[in-house]
């Protein structure tokens, strides 16, 4: 087991306050000077059902969930105890303690609430404890909480016990509880925290195990942010003041954050009847001169397919957010997957095209969301941020300076009334909104209400003034102009001082790992582990899905002998895109896939790499799948 990090898992029932407790705990560790990374697992229901959050904290940067965990706080699942629903819940009651118990590291610590859980229900519990040298503390957290206040406060008792055992100073927790809790419940909670802490110190020898919180310090102030927060704040800082949406997990998080914050900055949020309307509203608001967005998850995004084409054809800027979850169809609503890449790239009829970014980290989610708006409005094209439940829900410590940026409310390529007076019009006074020959294919737009700017926006093929027309010459001129924007954006992205692609590991290496979007951090951890073990390997995390960064990726592939492409889906969509865009290297690219509802852990990747790339072995289980390179 690792001594330099704490991987604390808090497990209980959905609705038992696991989310808020773990968030406070993560923030306390961050404030104490550690880097933190949280991984959430929850079922698709409101109350009841087993849920857990893992918080990984280290003095070193943490980029991924860990491999397993070394500290378990198993709370009871209060909703599993409803006698009337016994048949529904089955063996759910013991799950906080039993589920994935094998992933607890050797020498790890277990605290469980003996007021609610009975370890004897777990097969061979004592033998397994002995075999793995686990340290078990059965503490009646429930009674402790009840005596002071209410049973739900047993989370706090569990945190108090954790602090005593892991050597965490209580002041970090106290400070946070004081910030986060209303007066009324603060007092009893503080009482419970201290009682639990002291009781453990009194009754146990806390040094019989060595799972202790590491010590660390930050050079600069940190904030605890999720990918959803970052996308929302990136949108606001880019001057987005209009959102329309319809709830769907996991996109709902971004939608909710913006619904709550937009009124505070004089913006407008709209929950509407369906996703077709949502996308159409964003287009309408943008057309009328407001920076606007919408979004959804796979199923809702499918409904946006036709409006998306309308935005492309009318060259109305819009940003759409697509939060992937495991499909097909309703799939597994609360489980992450990266299976909507092709859906997002290719949906909508005709030779349609758009910009798609898949950020790899919380910080990238902020910067790339901003870039998505910038490009959408500059080039009058829909931009899409493609992410997933994993990135959206992960709370990560990020330097506060990442968001310390100036706002950019520019509407992009639009004209003022003064500029319109000198702009080209047809003989009847209509503004030539869609001129044939313009730089980068971008013809500036006017906004309804502006004098001298009237034109027709239409999804039909149209002349420069927007008049519907099907003549071959106009058709080709307009098609070529619209398609030209894609190359202009590709060049624009390549000219940026910082690429969206993320390189990790040594400059020179024999092997490469490649991935897209949110699996990036886990791949980088795998590179570090493999490097420590003596392998020659580096990685590339790609964010630009469209336009695809052909040069950068070609160079990376050229620089190594073989590449293992890692992605969270069953059909290797990202590898497929790469081969399509590059038109070669099929014999160099093999795939490691995971689509069981859980994100990759670093060990999944190191194992895949070692058994399949370095040797010709077998994977240890069905959690991941290997697909060889063409011709292999």
């Amino acid at each position: 087991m690792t001594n330099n990090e704490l991987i604390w898992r808090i497990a209980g029932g959905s609705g038992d306050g696991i989310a808020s407790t773990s968030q406070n705990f993560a923030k306390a560790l961050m404030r104490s000077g550690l880097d933190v990374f949280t991984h959430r697992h929850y079922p698709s229901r409101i109350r009841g059902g087993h849920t857990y959050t893992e918080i990984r904290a280290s003095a070193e940067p943490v980029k991924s969930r860990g491999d397993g965990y070394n500290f378990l706080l198993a709370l009871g699942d209060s909703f599993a105890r409803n006698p009337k629903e016994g048949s529904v819940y089955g063996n759910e009651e013991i799950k906080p303690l039993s589920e994935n118990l094998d992933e607890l590291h050797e020498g790890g610590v277990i605290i469980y609430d003996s007021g609610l859980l009975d370890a004897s229900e777990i097969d061979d519990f004592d033998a397994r404890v002995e075999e793995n040298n686990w340290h078990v503390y059965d503490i009646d957290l429930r009674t402790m909480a009840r005596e002071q206040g209410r049973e739900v406060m047993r989370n706090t008792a569990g945190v108090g016990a954790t602090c005593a055992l892991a050597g965490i100073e209580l002041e970090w927790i106290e400070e946070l509880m004081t910030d986060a809790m209303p007066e009324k419940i603060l007092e009893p909670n503080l009482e419970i925290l201290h009682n639990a802490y002291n009781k453990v110190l009194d009754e146990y020898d806390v040094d019989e195990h060595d799972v202790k919180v590491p010590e660390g310090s930050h050079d600069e102030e940190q904030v605890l942010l999720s990918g959803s927060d970052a996308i929302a704040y990136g949108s606001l800082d880019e001057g987005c003041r209009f959102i329309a949406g319809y709830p769907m997990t996991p996109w709902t998080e971004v939608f909710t954050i913006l619904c709550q914050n937009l009124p505070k900055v004089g913006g407008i949020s709209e929950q509407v009847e369906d996703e077709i309307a949502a996308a159409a509203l964003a287009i309408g608001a943008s057309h009328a001169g407001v920076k606007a967005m919408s979004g959804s998850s796979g199923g809702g995004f499918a409904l946006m397919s036709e409006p998306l084409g309308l935005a492309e054809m009318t060259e109305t800027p819009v940003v759409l957010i697509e939060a992937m979850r495991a499909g097909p169809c309703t799939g597994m609503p609360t489980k992450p997957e990266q299976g909507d890449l092709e859906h997002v790239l290719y949906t909508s009829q005709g030779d349609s095209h758009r910009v798609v970014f898949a950020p790899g980290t919380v910080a990238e989610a902020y910067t790339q969301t901003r870039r998505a708006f910038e490009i959408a409005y500059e080039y009058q094209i829909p931009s899409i941020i493609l992410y997933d439940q994993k990135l959206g829900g992960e709370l990560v410590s990020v330097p506060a300076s990442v968001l310390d940026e100036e706002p950019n409310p520019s509407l992009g390529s639009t004209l003022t009334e003064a500029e319109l007076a000198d702009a080209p019009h047809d003989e009847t006074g209509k503004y030539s909104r869609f001129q044939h020959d313009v730089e980068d294919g971008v013809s500036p737009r006017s906004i309804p209400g502006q004098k001298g700017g009237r034109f027709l926006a239409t999804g039909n093929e149209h002349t420069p003034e927007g008049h519907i027309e099907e003549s071959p010459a106009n058709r080709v001129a307009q098609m070529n102009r619209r398609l030209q924007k894609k190359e202009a954006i590709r060049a624009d992205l390549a000219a940026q001082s910082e690429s969206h692609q993320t390189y990790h590991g040594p400059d020179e290496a024999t092997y490469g790992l490649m991935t897209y979007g949110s699996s990036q951090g886990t791949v980088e951890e795998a590179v570090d582990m493999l490097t420590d073990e003596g392998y020659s390997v580096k990685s590339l995390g790609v964010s630009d899905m469209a336009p695809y960064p052909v040069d950068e990726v070609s160079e990376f592939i050229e620089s190594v002998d073989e590449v293992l492409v890692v992605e969270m889906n069953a059909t290797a969509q990202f590898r497929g895109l790469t081969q399509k865009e590059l038109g070669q290297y099929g014999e160099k690219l093999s795939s490691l896939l995971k689509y069981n509802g859980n994100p990759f852990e670093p060990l999944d990747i190191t194992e895949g790499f070692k058994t399949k790339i370095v040797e010709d072995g077998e994977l240890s289980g069905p959690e991941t799948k290997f697909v060889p390179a063409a011709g292999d």
Partner: protein
Amino acid sequence: MSAFSAIGEGQEIDQNEYTPGLEPQATWCPGCGDFGVLKALKGASAELGLSPEEILLTTGIGCSGKLNSYFDSYGFHTIHGRSLPVARAAKLANPGLEVIAAGGDGDGYGIGGNHFMHTARENHDMTYIVFNNEIFGLTKGQTSPTSPKGHKSKTQPHGNAKEPLRPLSLSLTSGASYIARTAAVNPNQAKEIIIEAMEHDGFAHIDFLTQCPTWNKDARQYVPYIDVNESDDYDFDKTDRRSAAEMMAETEDALHEGKVLTGRFYVDENRPSYGQEKRAIGEMPEQPLAERYFDDSYEWERSADLFLDKHK
């Protein structure tokens, strides 16, 4: 100073100003009722002194959707059934615009029916004109949501087994605050009703009977028509929801018995529009949002200043 100086000028304007130079002659079939809508809309806009550049006319897809090509203003010819969500967002973004949405009966009551219900329910301050020809015109005459029971078409060769949708009643239950029916053969009434609808502060729905001589041969030309507000045979209170509901039901039944009843069926002047409701709860700015993007002195908010503290 407004960045949108076409808005709110108020001017003397000839209705020919709305005739586009490029395709001045609409290419609907001879005798098509759609001409009547165009004429009434031009007349109403001129009478209200609206500049073509303060009007945003959004349409769906259909013969009716061609309205944008023949009416010169800012226009957004959207996709089938989606003129309403585009229109209502534009109105929220810039409330100064005179927003009109238009489309066919298939477009508005069929594929876009969900948007119709919800836009009415929310009472957006806009005008919605449905070209009701009881048929899918553009796609060559298939049965539409308002086609009468028994109506034969290529897709319902044995006659429509479905009862037609009741557009006025649906509008009322959904929440529209101004509901009228007019007919292409009655240009003066049509113009007056469009003027009232545009002046109304809320969602004004006009079910506009537009004969399709090409595909709906067994339909009447919607003559003779009776104005229920003027005829002595009808006595109802258009400001009373229950009374209006009865009159609507009677009107919808009568149409398929060969009697064309038109007029204002429901008018609620007291209900606040959606924009007013949203402003009242602090969810919409007092100044048009679109103006802000042209205001160089506006200090744009930063997430780092407003929202980061709670993440520290």
